[in-house]
């Protein structure tokens, strides 16, 4: 098979994948196109610094509070979040516990 045909197919496919990735990003984050930079957290909580350091780059506090409130069982939701942080983040177990405790406190208040 002509080697330039293979090269062209590879380029076309790579371009298609890039477009698919761009379309994915646009579709799952509507209205986020104007956001060029991650939004820093604004709601003051006891472990603001920890949250900003480990979570704030990708998540807002409102988003995490929404996850805690997804069902009435706040304890279970908090435990699930703790397990998520232990698998996902770069914080220590103690720091995970502080973050979850602070969020849980706020979620219980509102």
């Amino acid at each position, binding site marked *: *098979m*002509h*080697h*330039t*045909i*293979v*090269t062209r*197919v*590879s380029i076309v*496919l*790579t371009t*298609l*994948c890039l477009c*698919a*990735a*761009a379309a*994915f*990003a*646009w*579709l*799952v*984050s*509507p*209205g*986020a*196109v104007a*956001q*060029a*930079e*991650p*939004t820093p957290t604004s709601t003051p909580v006891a472990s603001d610094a920890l949250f900003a*350091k*480990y979570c704030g*780059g*990708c*998540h*807002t506090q*409102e*988003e995490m509070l*929404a*996850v805690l409130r997804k069902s009435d069982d706040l304890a279970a939701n908090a435990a699930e979040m703790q397990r*998520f942080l*232990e*698998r*996902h*983040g*770069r914080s220590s177990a103690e720091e995970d516990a502080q973050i979850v405790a602070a969020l849980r406190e706020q979620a219980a208040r509102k």
Partner: protein
Amino acid sequence: MGLLFRGIVWFSVYVLLVLLPLALAMLGDPIAAARPWSLEFAVAGGFIAYAIIAFEFALVSRLRAASEPFGTDSLLQFHAQMGVAGMLFLLLHVLLLLPHAASASMFNPFAGGVAARSGALAFWALLILGVTSAGRSRLRLRYETWQWVHASAALLVGGSALVHILAVGHYASRTALRVILIVYALAFVALLLRYRIIRPLRLARLPWEVVSNTDVGGDTRSLVVRPVDHPGLRFQPGQFVWLATGARPLTAQQHPITIASSAEPDEAHHIELAIKAFGDWSGNVVPQLHAGARVWLDGPYGALTPDRFPGQGFVLIAGGIGITPMLSILRTMRDRDDVRPVVLIYAANRPERMVFRDELTALQSELNLRIVLVYESPPPDWRGEQGLVTTELLRRHLPKQYKRFQYFVCGPAQMMDLLEDELLEVGVPAAQICTERFNMG
């Protein structure tokens, strides 16, 4: 089912498999509030990188049904180029995540949680894989060493990437997507097992024995082998096999070697292979293969054959050891009493580098064959063609009806790249040009 249709089906399946994880990530309820567009783009890049890498091995795992429509060398080329694409998507993933990361320790495979460490490991393993592939000659890596590094790094990339995606969760916390990602990894492992264990075990039951090992000049050896207690293999003229040498197929070194024999079998089902000394294996191992030595042949493979691409006539263009498939084609035509016109353009550095010259000369009286010899450094008394195979040379020697002929080209990669363009320039339709190259790594 025609080869073209099968090719389209296989390619479509490949594209769907690459994009499927992304499609599954998009379906269903959003997991959380909207995140920055650049972050989602980074995530998408990661999914695409994983899918491309997961199926890289499938492209070179010698799945005959998938390789037949394209030819092995096209799949090797596609494998290399999609490997680069996979690496680019991974770099995109990493670069776009950087502004969102807590620190540059995301590159440290010994720090952080499971997600961070596995991601860093996948990154460095892919970098090693890319560097050793692109720079194999410069790093002076032996082919067998490079193969081992390549396979190990690929396993590490795939495994680490899967652990990373599952540990991060988010979209991958959805069951359908988790299942697909794990299925991709299992498919990779299954193909690897088939390639490295099952296939060699099958080959072990089909041994071949060396009948003769002769120096035919031009640093080339002619190896004739015969099947031991099995009927041998049927092949098409111009095809190749993977020749495995060693104590057993499981641990054997394997190299692609074109079959020089006629595809019309002799009574003993002998097969002749012509092997030029290029490196450690061909220069040191092959000459030591004595009569009676055991070898294994995995094949046949390859699409450089007039049985697949018939024509009113043929133009065969060979450089150096690229004469081997042409010899098989001509021997087969002789044995089949095929009277279609053939022009053979055979290029070599100088006369001593040419092989099978006497036999090719003899074939001119048995076939409707015209041979054009081209020397890059000819002897002083040479009156024939010299230098490179250029468009001018082609115009001088191509027959009148050349646009209806089928073209087969085999030689050094640079020569084939050049000739593909030159043949198009003189007006040969692209669909009638068939090439095969084996630039491993």
